[in-house]
């Protein structure tokens, strides 16, 4: 249960390959955190995150590797990971922003690469399972990251941005369902340029926000879930662009 100071005692991070998810988890890690569950389909990213969090002194870090596009296995693994005690916060991290095939050119057919698979096949299944499990607990916070759909400028990762824009619709509908079931949802909607993972070339990140900035905003929103009925909090970034739903 999240305490009056916003401290989390049991945290779940889905997807360990994107800096936004990792930075948000880092921001929520505190002295009261006892259990951290990490889920990913990429064993390299999962191993790196697990060793990092174990070194930070969290008593119980549980890594879970699942295969992509295996609905029943994913549901079973997530359900098993939601053991005792209750999970306070689930971070639905964005998929890892892998670079597309160098031979890909604009206008060509978009291959279902790993980013798209992880985003559009796995995340909706995992999100739906987490919502059901949080609703069964009777409390909990779900944090999700999406892009506000807009035309992409040159230099952005097309597969990643397309996936995040599509997730905006999919997860948006799931979020409404989650709130009806009594789950708090914090939806972070970013402009593609503001997402630090969007740029193909690091030199073109001038408009990107730092992951830690986004994580601080999410942390504040988590604290505000106290003493309120479950609701959907939308954080539109960058602020001032009128990116409201």
């Amino acid at each position, binding site marked *: 249960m999240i305490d*009056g100071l916003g401290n989390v005692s049991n945290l779940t991070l889905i997807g360990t390959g994107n800096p936004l998810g990792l930075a948000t988890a880092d921001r929520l890690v505190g002295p009261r955190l006892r259990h951290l569950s990490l889920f990913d389909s990429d064993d390299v990213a999962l191993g790196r995150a697990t060793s990092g969090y174990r070194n930070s002194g969290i008593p119980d870090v549980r890594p879970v590797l699942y295969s992509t596009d295996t609905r029943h296995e994913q549901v079973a693994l997530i359900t098993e990971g939601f053991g*005792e005690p209750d999970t306070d916060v689930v971070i639905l991290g964005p998929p890892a922003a892998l670079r597309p095939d160098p031979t890909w050119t604009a206008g060509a057919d978009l291959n279902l690469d790993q980013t798209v698979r992880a985003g559009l096949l796995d995340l909706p299944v995992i999100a739906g399972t987490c919502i059901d499990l949080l609703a069964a607990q009777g409390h909990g916070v779900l944090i999700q990251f999406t892009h506000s759909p807009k035309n992409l400028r040159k230099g952005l990762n097309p597969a990643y941005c397309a996936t995040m824009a599509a997730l905006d619709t999919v997860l948006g509908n799931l979020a409404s369902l989650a*709130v009806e079931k009594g789950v708090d949802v914090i939806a972070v909607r970013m402009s593609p340029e503001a997402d630090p993972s969007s740029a193909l070339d690091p030199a073109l990140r001038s408009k990107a926000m730092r992951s830690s900035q986004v994580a601080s905003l999410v942390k504040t929103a988590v604290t505000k879930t106290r003493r309120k009925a*479950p609701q959907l909090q939308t954080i539109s970034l960058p602020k001032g662009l009128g990116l409201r739903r």
Partner: protein
Amino acid sequence: MYRSQPDTVRVQPADEIQIVERAPVNRPQAVGLVSDQILNSPARGLLIDACDPIAGDWASNTGGRLVRLQGTFAAPAVEWINWRDGIARIAAGAPVGVVSQALRSAGWSLPVVGGHPNATVGACVSTNVRNCRTSGAQDFGSYLTAIEYVDGEGIPGRAELEGRPAIARALIGGLGTVAAITAIETKIEAVNSAWTSITTTRCDSFATMIESFLQRDTTFHFVKFDHTARRGQLGRGVSIAARRAGIQELPESRRRNALESTESPANTPHWLATAPTRTRSITHLWRAVEFQSKPRTSTSLMPESQLHHHRWLGLRNHQLSFDFTLPLQSAELIIWLFEELEHAQCPPLWASAFATSASSLSYLQPVIDGINVTLTLDATHAELSSILDRADEAICQAGGFVLLNTDQRLRPDVVAAMFGDRELWQAQRIACDPAGRFVSDIDRRLFW
């Protein structure tokens, strides 16, 4: 004696209120409605509404179904008064402020007039509220004579407190997780007027403040620390002693509105209110107790009793209440905590204290001889968590405890060390609610 009233049982799921209204029914039928709601709720998913922003943790709705007791469970607030024995039967869903007003209009008062005025009577029993009495018992549960409830299996019951049964001890201070309290019978006190006479005295040091705790010649007594004090001035403040004002003490204009004694037909003492009591802003009181701007002693204050005793202070989202009790010999821990907070540049927004005396029926809410301190702090401060964690351990080692009814951040391991009767409470709780339907936020955080 039950009065037939229209019944409304409101069930609030996560996002909206579904209103289930029935035709006017009598009380047994209303209890049946509550039983239905309990039996139809999932495990670990039923909160009983307390309407208490002070006890924000266990009463807040962060998921689960919220049952609000209304209809015959809220009105009339006072069902009957036994004038000869000084006992009243009170609806559990009524706000305690309304109960205070109803009793006072009849010339009586609750023995413990604490808690937020909007908190329900059931919540006051479930958190075992207390006030700053300097003599006699200080917690609400000590004055109860009977509690009616519906347990986790939907079975109504009644616990007489004469023999101190285990179910009653589990219900008092049980944080709303043992059963749904539907009515109580409690001892009440006869009062002369609706006003309180207050004397404030400035104390320039912490030692003087401690000495003021030992004065037990007034009905109510607490101290307000000067939260703006720094370094060597830490612990100074204002001592506030209060007692119920007699009619002869009131100004002539108020005396006309005071309570008058008459003889009832049955030759029992009967007090009648001749006019509605006047209300007065409590800011007038607090404006007068500022440390430096007022004379050392002031006796001219006379606010209305209800405004003085019921705490209107609501916590905002960025504020945190830290409420703990220490043995008198460990009072220096208070200064240590003030120094820690000052060093971290996180001074309290409010700090007050009153003396406590050992008497309690509750398993989870003990009362010891010592000092109860209430701090309101800025919850957004980065170092607050570690400071209060150290304070928890120091309080526990000194033989004190942190009050559960306002707690929002205790660790489960510290709770296990603080409250010795926790296992007895858990056993009784399982007996009352084997399916584990009742739940609260503090329960989720500390006892799972």
